[in-house]
């Protein structure tokens, strides 16, 4: 099982050699990335069954924890790894000409994503978070238009400040406890629950919140997503934002399981939902609307995670997967349906299929029965109602209000799509690869409808595994049970 470290190492290796290989053969250099991704996907699928319900720990360098770096692998992280590999294969720049170094950046992004999912060491997580950030700066700034360069610069400032905060938070935790291993930290949470510990957590949330599109830290989102190519936007909005969320959730679950912290998450989530939907309502172009609505959806995910225990976790997981599918699909679709709403007038005539898929996606996003989005939202609201805190009850009202706003602007857009003032503009749009992927996403969404209960059972299992710090601690620090302090 130790070979699962290849998930991180192979993409790094390929990123290093791509520029040299490109000097000899451009074709091979373009193929390295997809080949590695397919190999990793196969690796993830093959090792699925050999990972037990207790997870598995890789001790890097053979140093037993808490001294060395540890990777923790369970079904949850394997599932995320599979999604990363799959998503990168989808957004891989197949047809457009790109410089070999750009392939390198994509592979570095991949390695960083795997590292973020698998690592169980705070500083190691920071390293991968930073690698992810630097690779995205390059990919965003590389876009052809000057607007993207400005967006990348602003993103750089926000994100670099965030990274500094994250590092500061980790440094405070290390000074307080003298260790960086999350499992080891989880055995001494009482030392972290003072004022200094909580401020460290706040700093970590701020740092990771930049990528997770958290309220007040998401000013870069609309600018970046509307200037970069849509597959990359689909990757950032669909997947990367979720990885940052997972980082926050891991730290929260293992180290700061307190009601104040959860309520803070709830409030931030509610603000994110409301502000995102309000601005999306005023948006006049497709990509901006999608980016703002993505902020709102991430807020919703934070609300779900703010419910204590397994329930909140599995609803949050379901929301994450649903949003990955729907928002990823919408951004891929927007590759064809770009531009201001006026340009999209009468689009239904031009491509009935695209509009049909679009409507499926937004119905699920809104939570109209029988789409998966409905069940998730229903579970969220039911469980919010069960909480013994009025704050959670107010959140229900805000979620419903946000849904109304969301419905207002999405249906307005649908009306535009069916208006045809000049029916003469029938352009035969080329069948692009991204459109096919959008269709596949929609198909997956529809098929998942038939498997709602097995999927939710699977997610519940996963959630109970992730939510239990004891499993995590016992797998990584077996010696801790016998009382020996290594």
């Amino acid at each position, binding site marked *: 099982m130790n070979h699962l*470290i290849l998930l991180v190492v192979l993409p790094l*290796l390929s990123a*290093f050699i791509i520029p040299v290989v490109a000097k000899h053969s451009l074709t091979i250099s373009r193929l390295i990335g997809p080949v590695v991704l397919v190999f990793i996907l196969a690796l993830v699928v093959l090792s699925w069954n050999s990972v037990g319900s207790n997870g598995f720990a890789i001790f890097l360098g053979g140093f037993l924890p808490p*001294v060395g*770096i540890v990777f923790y692998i369970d079904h949850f992280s394997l599932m995320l790894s599979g999604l990363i590999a799959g998503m990168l294969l989808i957004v891989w720049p197949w047809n457009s000409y790109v410089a070999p170094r750009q392939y*390198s950046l994509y592979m570095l992004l991949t390695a960083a994503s795997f590292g973020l999912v698998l690592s169980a060491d705070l500083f190691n997580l920071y390293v991968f978070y930073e690698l992810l950030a630097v690779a995205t700066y390059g990919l965003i700034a590389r876009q052809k238009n*000057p607007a993207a360069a400005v967006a990348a610069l602003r993103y750089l400032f926000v994100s670099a400040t965030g990274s500094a905060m994250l590092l*500061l938070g980790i440094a*405070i935790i290390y000074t307080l406890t003298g260790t960086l291993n999350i499992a080891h930290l989880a055995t001494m949470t009482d030392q972290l629950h003072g004022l200094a510990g909580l401020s460290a957590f706040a700093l970590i949330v701020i740092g990771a919140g930049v990528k997770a599109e958290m309220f007040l830290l998401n000013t870069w989102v609309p600018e970046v997503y509307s200037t970069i190519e849509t597959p990359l936007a689909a990757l950032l909005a669909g997947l990367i934002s979720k990885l940052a969320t997972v980082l926050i959730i891991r730290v929260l679950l293992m180290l700061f399981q307190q009601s104040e912290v959860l309520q803070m998450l709830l409030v931030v989530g509610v603000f994110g939902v409301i502000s995102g939907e309000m601005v999306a309502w005023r948006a006049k172009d497709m990509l901006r609307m999608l980016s703002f609505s993505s902020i709102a959806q991430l807020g919703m995910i934070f609300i779900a995670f703010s419910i204590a225990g397994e329930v909140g976790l599995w609803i949050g997981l379901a929301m994450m997967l649903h949003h990955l599918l729907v928002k990823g699909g919408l951004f891929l679709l927007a590759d064809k349906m770009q531009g201001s709403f006026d340009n999209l007038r009468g689009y239904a005539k031009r491509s009935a299929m695209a509009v049909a898929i679009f409507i499926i996606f937004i119905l699920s996003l809104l939570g109209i029965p029988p789409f998966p989005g409905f069940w998730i939202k229903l579970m969220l609201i039911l469980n919010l109602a069960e909480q013994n805190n009025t704050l959670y009850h107010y959140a229900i009202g805000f979620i419903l209000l946000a849904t109304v706003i969301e419905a207002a602007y999405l249906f307005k857009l649908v009306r535009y799509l069916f208006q045809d003032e000049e029916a003469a503009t029938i352009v035969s749009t080329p069948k692009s690869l991204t459109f096919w992927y959008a269709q596949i996403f929609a198909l997956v969404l529809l098929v998942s409808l038939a498997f709602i209960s097995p999927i939710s059972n699977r997610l519940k299992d996963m959630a109970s595994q992730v939510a239990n710090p004891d499993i995590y601690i016992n797998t990584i620090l077996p010696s801790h049970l016998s009382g020996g302090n290594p």
Partner: protein
Amino acid sequence: MTKFASLLFIAGLAFFLMVVTGLLPLGNSPMLIGNAILDSAKEQVGAANVVTSVVLAYRGLDTLGELSILFAAASAVGLLLTKSSFNKPSKNPTNTEESDSGFVAINGIDLIFPLLLVVGMYIISHGHLTPGGGFQGGVVLAIAFAMRSIVRPRGKSIDHGVVTFIEAFAGLSFIVIGLVALYTQGHFLQPMLDQGHFGSLWSAGTIPLLYLAVGLKVGAELAGLILALNTDEVNI
């Protein structure tokens, strides 16, 4: 208004950091991991410089990550400065002779250049014994080439293809050493080979090799960056 808000934010942040610093047990913080490493580093890794044991053995993956971050930054800068981007290089190349910095500077640098290379390689190769190592030595190597390119802005100080090759080769060898350890010893980047006589140049197993890879990688990365900033036409 914006300026006032930023000022307020910075003041608030400074106050917050001050309070947090006051809360921390600075000076007598618990050294759980630190002490554990100090106790076991000598027999587990065998490097006389404990910092090196931490950088390359206990936290080797972090070092690989740092190298990748540097590589990502260099790649991003290289991508931004290519011809196709909107950042067009100046059209009129000046005469090679005119842009040079004069006799004293050029000959001075030519004199120092080999010495800098020796110092850089010394720092890298003694990284497991004395303070220093791949990162510091790599920077010295890069500076040697940077100074040559500063005094002769139009002259060709080093071939970009060579830099790219060294960059890739160094990264490759770091990972390959790690993978060899994975398949022979069982763990990625596990210390291998004989630890040798503690404190001698040939000791600490694979650690000096890893540091050599780090040094070459850092040097090539920074030299490549300076080259990309200096040349008109970059072929990445």
